[in-house]
């Protein structure tokens, strides 16, 4: 292996590892935020459904 090739390989693998890990963590963070947002929306929707089922008709309006 020539010196230049060894240098380029070591640079590429080293930087690739550092950036690769960073990108992986960033994707995981995005996924985590998306999951939290989805959980929040689901919780709000279930609260809304609960309120809607609690509303009951209070009687009939008689029109004379």
């Amino acid at each position, binding site marked *: 292996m020539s010196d230049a090739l060894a240098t380029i390989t*070591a640079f590429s693998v*080293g930087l690739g*590892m*550092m*950036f690769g890990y*960073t990108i992986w963590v*960033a994707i995981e963070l995005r996924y*985590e935020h998306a999951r*939290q947002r989805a959980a929040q929306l689901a919780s709000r929707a279930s609260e809304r459904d609960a309120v809607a089922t609690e509303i009951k008709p209070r009687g009939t309006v008689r029109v004379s």
Partner: protein
Amino acid sequence: MDRWREWGVYSYWGLTLLTLCVGVALALRAPVHEVMGPIQKLLYLHLPVAVNTFLFAIVVFVASVGYLGGRRQVWDDLAHAAATVTVLNGTVLLLTGVVWAKVAWGHWWMWSPRLCISLILWLLYSVYLASRARMRSPHHRAVFCSIYGVVAFLDVPLLYLTVKLLPDIHPTESGLTPSMYPALWTWFAGITLLSVGTMVTRFVLGRSSLRRWEELPARTVGGTASGGPR
């Protein structure tokens, strides 16, 4: 607020990429070392990752002491994020080191004091991360890892003393000429920006996961209510 934060994050990573691109250009333009040849250019990556390994080991130490002092989870999360970056930088340090050793000395590895203590440093922080993954109780994990983080840090001054006191095949002088310094400083800035950015991203991820854990409804496991860590 979110838009400003997003803008800040993109600017930070843009600056990091730009710094590293300028670093690559400067490294290509820098003169080739008369004795060592092109392999000497690995110093632009090898030296910054070595310094960053020590810097983030110091962060692990400070955060571990912080946790032991105040028992606040944020310190443990910081120590975890810093340990990850220590191992990452240490891996690149060893990788560039063995390639350089093969070209310069004809061997991938020499059992010299400095190389051995660098390997021990990498192993210590790798074991730190592996232990974290194995322990389930957040409180016990934080206490154990904080004590471990303080003890593991002893390897850093030991490595420094080895450089100063023991004879070694590994050179102490960088052998750089003044025209090579701009490339080296740019690489220092780029690698430090990349490492800090990775640590902050890992820290935010740890905090987000913790928040989700805390929001889980308390369950009864084995007769005791288990909630998230405080």
